[in-house]
């Protein structure tokens, strides 16, 4: 188990992406699964900055990786406002282009890309989002 803290700003996204990519590759995940994890983590971290912190440079994102035989677990923790992605409704699809609204796509991608998504909040710990990708 290893935790690295990244400053909560968009510039950190590529560094976080590289960090999880390396871990996912050494855990033996397929290229497709590695991309899925990178995308889910990127969307989750962008949401932390946008919604939990309400902007850049308000706090850190702690990223913990646990590689086991069954798969890779990624725990993202922040100290921003409670932000439960599970309350975000699925995005609307099959609507005319001009009516398409940028809502819920990131969270939907996180759900679809990962095998398990778990959220908890405590005043002491902040938001804790746990993502799991099975090694298949």
């Amino acid at each position, binding site marked *: 188990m290893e935790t690295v803290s990244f400053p909560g700003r968009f510039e950190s996204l590529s560094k976080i992406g590289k960090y999880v990519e390396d871990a996912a590759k050494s855990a033996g995940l397929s290229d497709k699964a590695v991309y899925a994890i990178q995308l889910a983590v990127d969307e989750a971290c962008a949401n932390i900055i946008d919604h939990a912190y309400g902007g850049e440079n308000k706090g850190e994102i702690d990223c913990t990786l646990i590689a086991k035989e069954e798969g890779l677990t990624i725990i993202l923790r922040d100290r921003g406002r409670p932000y439960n992605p599970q309350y975000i409704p699925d995005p609307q699809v099959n609507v005319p282009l001009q009516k*398409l609204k940028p809502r819920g796509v990131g969270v939907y*991608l996180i759900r679809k890309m990962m095998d398990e998504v778990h959220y908890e909040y405590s005043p002491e710990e902040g938001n804790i989002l746990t993502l799991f990708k099975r090694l298949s």
Partner: protein
Amino acid sequence: MEVTTTEYKRCDVVKAVGRVDSSTAPKLEETLTSIIESGRYKIVFDMSEVNFMSSKGWWVLIDAQKKCKRYKRGEVVLVNVQDNIRESLDLVGMGTYFKIYNDVTVAVGSF
């Protein structure tokens, strides 16, 4: 991420290299907006060297598509979308809003 633009008679070809995420998407948005604001609405987006694109990047393209398609004055078409990116696009149902080509010349010729 680097963005370059080549202006052709019929359309503009925009090529991005690298990663499009919340940090870099504004740069892509700026490029597309300046083309659209100059009155050019036919845009080929070459994604052959884009290796990652988050939903933030897709929204930049959707916004540009909305502006270009308004009054049927043009369109944004995509070229060489890598498989992983294509799958995530289709997963959220956004793939239907773009024509996707495998060759820049063919895409340019489509206008």
